[in-house]
């Protein structure tokens, strides 16, 4: 807990680069390369190369300059990505169907040498359909299950190409606060969550990323109706029964309720594998180790006053993911689902992930439009925040839109975080000094960075028991059509700016279907920071523990 019950987020989006300050990787590499080439070529070709080099550097500055719509380079990358997705046919998703897959493959083989124009056209369609037919939706690409049996916690096994493999488990939570709680209770609750994070951050911990996630959805009275049905006196007056139904409808009208989850992410690292080996051979060892880890998280979350804590089964996670794609499906509706039924048919537009499915209750076709944005620290106003700063986004009356808010918190051991904070303080103070050395007024951004880095360093001081935490946020809004989605995005952006101090939402356009996965309970979207050279060296020296040791 912050001593005064106030917390600080925002302002600094990354550790400092080689040149100090916050410089993008593209800019660093581009300018570095331009300088080196200019230095080598200028002696040979004279001043013209020097001028050309300067022009290139200016161009790189322009291309990488961050604006409220991102940099030119980013925008170009998005357009290119969208174009390549359309060309490759990955802008559509059809859930994998073995029989259909075999049939289309056979048909393509059979007609490989056809000269018939109609067959050629059909072949192109079949090809596109096959490209769209994938085992899992883009948001969960490369996801399988380490454990998906019924009645046990579902352990998702992720192996997306180009990313670190990991395991994830989702826990359903009751929530920390109820009703009219005092300020001190609120602070105590925040303190409890902070301790939960800190207790899982040390070097030896295998759990490295936590994803608190809240789904905001229209109220559903199904469970209450079920309870009533089991207790109903059939002889009750018909008017009274109708009246009760009306009460339930009125209670749910316009009401948005919240479902809370927390997802843990365990990277499958050599340390994880070595630790699992002590519990059993191969993946039986992984499962046995994960059982211990899950129990520990449940205990920790209970101590952190999270209300009821329940690990979701694989089918439970699948039901949540399906609901998030198709909100017409109740969030707990598992009937007929297998753990690998993760996807609903969908297609993408540049700015939306569009799911075409059916309402399981009515059997009528439905369409849902989703759009996801990232919340970066550098896009947030640097201000004190109370533990309730998110309430407007979670329960705000003006936001009657289906949405999911998720943060991903990477836990960084104190020693490594402290070293980074120290380096950032030094670079930022040097920047500040150089800005003000000539009697000029310093840059606000630099001052903010100095304050933020100093605060981090203070938090990590010896004896504080706190650790580092790298974080990013994601938010997905959902609406039944394009116009409503556009309106919802605008309203959300307004509420974020006005009430939450989030000045910009970074809409993850051009790959919205994959971006949807960042707010599913599978801990997607955060790339863990690479350990510094010294931390990596220390890890190598630490080895993987003695084989003879108990744990």
């Amino acid at each position, binding site marked *: *807990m912050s001593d005064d019950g106030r917390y600080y*987020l925002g302002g600094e989006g*990354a550790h400092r680069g080689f040149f100090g300050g916050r410089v993008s990787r593209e800019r660093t590499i581009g300018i570095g390369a331009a300088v080196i080439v200019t230095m080598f070529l200028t002696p040979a070709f004279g001043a013209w190369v020097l001028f050309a080099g300067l022009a290139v550097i200016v161009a790189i500055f322009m291309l990488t300059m961050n604006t409220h719509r991102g940099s030119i380079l980013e925008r170009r990358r998005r357009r290119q990505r969208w174009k*390549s997705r359309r060309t490759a046919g990955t802008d559509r998703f059809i859930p*994998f169907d073995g029989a259909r*897959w075999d049939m289309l493959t056979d048909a393509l083989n059979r007609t490989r040498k056809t000269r018939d124009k109609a067959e050629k056209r059909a072949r192109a369609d079949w090809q596109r359909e096959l490209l769209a037919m*994938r085992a899992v939706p883009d948001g969960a690409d490369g996801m*399988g299950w380490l*454990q*998906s049996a019924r009645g046990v916690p579902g352990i998702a*096994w992720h192996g997306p190409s*180009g*990313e670190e493999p990991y395991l994830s488990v989702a826990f359903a939570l*009751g*929530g*920390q*606060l*109820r*009703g*009219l709680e005092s300020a001190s209770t609120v602070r105590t609750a925040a303190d409890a*969550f902070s301790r939960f994070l800190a207790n899982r951050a040390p070097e030896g911990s295998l759990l490295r990323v936590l994803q*608190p996630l809240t789904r905001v959805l229209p109220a559903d009275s199904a469970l209450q109706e*079920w*309870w*009533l049905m089991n*207790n*109903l006196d059939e002889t*009750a*007056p018909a*008017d009274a*029964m*109708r009246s009760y139904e009306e009460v*339930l409808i009125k209670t*749910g009208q316009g*009401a*948005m*309720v*919240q479902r809370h989850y*927390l997802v843990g992410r365990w990277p499958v690292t050599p340390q994880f594998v070595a630790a699992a080996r002590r519990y059993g051979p191969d*993946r039986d060892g992984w499962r046995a180790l994960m059982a211990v880890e899950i129990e520990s998280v449940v205990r920790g979350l209970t101590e952190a006053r999270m209300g009821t804590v329940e690990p979701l089964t694989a089918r439970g996670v699948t039901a949540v993911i399906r609901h998030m794609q198709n909100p017409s499906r109740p969030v707990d509706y598992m009937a007929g689902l297998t*753990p690998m039924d993760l996807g609903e048919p969908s297609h993408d537009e540049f700015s939306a992930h569009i799911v075409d499915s059916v309402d399981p209750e009515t059997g009528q076709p439905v369409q849902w439009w989703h759009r996801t944005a990232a919340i*970066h620290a550098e896009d947030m106003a640097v201000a004190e925040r109370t533990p309730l700063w*998110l*309430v407007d986004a*979670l*329960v705000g009356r003006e936001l009657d839109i289906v949405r999911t808010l998720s943060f991903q*918190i990477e836990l960084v051991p104190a020693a490594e*975080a402290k070293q980074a904070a120290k380096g950032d303080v030094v670079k930022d103070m040097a920047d500040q000094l150089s800005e003000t050395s000539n009697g000029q007024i310093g840059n606000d951004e630099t001052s903010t960075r100095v304050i933020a880095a100093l*605060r981090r360093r203070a*938090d990590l001081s010896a004896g504080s028991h*706190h650790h*580092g*935490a790298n*974080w*990013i946020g994601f938010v997905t809004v959902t609406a039944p059509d394009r116009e409503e989605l556009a309106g919802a995005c605008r309203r959300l952006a307004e509420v974020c700016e006005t009430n939450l101090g989030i000045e910009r939402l970074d809409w993850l356009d051009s790959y919205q279907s*994959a971006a949807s996965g960042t707010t599913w309970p599978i801990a997607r*979207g*955060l*790339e863990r*920071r690479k350990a510094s050279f010294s931390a990596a060296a220390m890890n190598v020296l630490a080895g993987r523990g003695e084989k003879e040791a108990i744990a």
Partner: protein
Amino acid sequence: MSESNLTRRQQQAAVDENPAREVSPYELPGSQLRGSYRAARRGLYAPKLTGAPSTTRQAAVLNTALIGQPTGTQGIANGRDQLSHTLIAHDPVTAYNARPRLVSSPNTVVAGGVGGGKSSFVKTVCVGRPLLLKHRRAVVFDKKPQGEEGEYAAIARAYGADPLRFTVDGSSSTRLNLLDPLIVRNGAGAAGTYRLLHTIVRIARENARLTDWEEESVRAALTLTLAQFEDGRTPTMSDVLPFLGRIPNDSKYDDLAPSARDLLHHAGLGVRWTLTGLLEEYAGLLDGETSETVDLTGKLTSFDISQLPNDGPAVNVVRAIGNEWMMGRLRGERGWATTVVYEEGWDMVDGPTAHLLKSNQKLSRALGLSNVFVFHKGKDIAPDSPGQTVISEAQSIYMFRQDRPEDAAWAVRTFDFEPSTADVLQRLAPGHFVFKYGSQPEVEVQHVRSEWERELTDTDDAMQVTAEDAG
């Protein structure tokens, strides 16, 4: 071997081979989204963003699981939580029977100033809606007049029960014979009738205790009366009067000295005169056989005492009789949960019938009794009275607007609310209330009513007519 058997065996074999139902992410069928490993590493196919540096101390505010649902989904729908916007589903009987128990007492307190909406709330949430459930019933002592009858009359009829209407003029009043076996049920017999008679004498004497001699004289008179009518009609209260002051020809009185017999005689006469006065005043209410229209077997029983004067003993006499009947019914018909509403019940928790209530409280858990005490403010109950204990033991609290700071402070003190709730209580809109159950923190709730309930429960008919006329 049939094909289906084979399939089942194959499925079982697959489960035996892979009991954890493992699915490798590296062997997924179908097309692949990520065609190029290098492009995937650059984040071309899916967001792959790095986090901003902070600490576990500051990251405390990144918890989104902030607002929890105050109640589960099991229980009668009360309304909507103003913070989480979720349904508040609670009733003391369901909460008491939950495992683990959510409340340790099935009693309820509903309090608040005039116009806050507590009356509509009680009629719907405490009385009407629970009647939809199996093995639930309700008894109401309806004290607040709405025109010619009590405010529960409409809702009682809607649930198929005619209210038992009591008046002092006798012409249109329901009559209850306190010696009627229908009233004193379940084999309580003479003991039950004695208890009731004793209570009524106390009520008539403004709660003054009976002496030992008076108590014995009542027991003696009752013995003589019941013996006389053993094979005939049901005796009435008038039939008891002549026996008060007589000493039965019983061996237990044989050794009494003449002076002691005199004392017993005088004591009996005193009680006789008390009861004679009561009967003269409330003849239509108590004198004679129980009215034929009285049906005490329905799910909802409403004792309409709204037309009885507040300053006489009549109200409490009916309450005492109703209470005795109810306790007999509870003992005789187990397995039911009974809600008893003491509307405007501050005198019930603090007046001459308080001892009845205290005894009900003790038996409430055993007999499935859930008492609902409805009153305006804490000051209605004397600070050191047993009523305060009754109130503070309740575990389901519904507090409507309290206009005065001292009343709000009383509620905060009595029910262990957060201090800031005092302000909330003073600014609650009509139909909103602060709800607390067990040791859970209190929440602000909006009571939600159907149109049907609205028609049945609005108590401001006269004002509405005036407003319509004005309009």
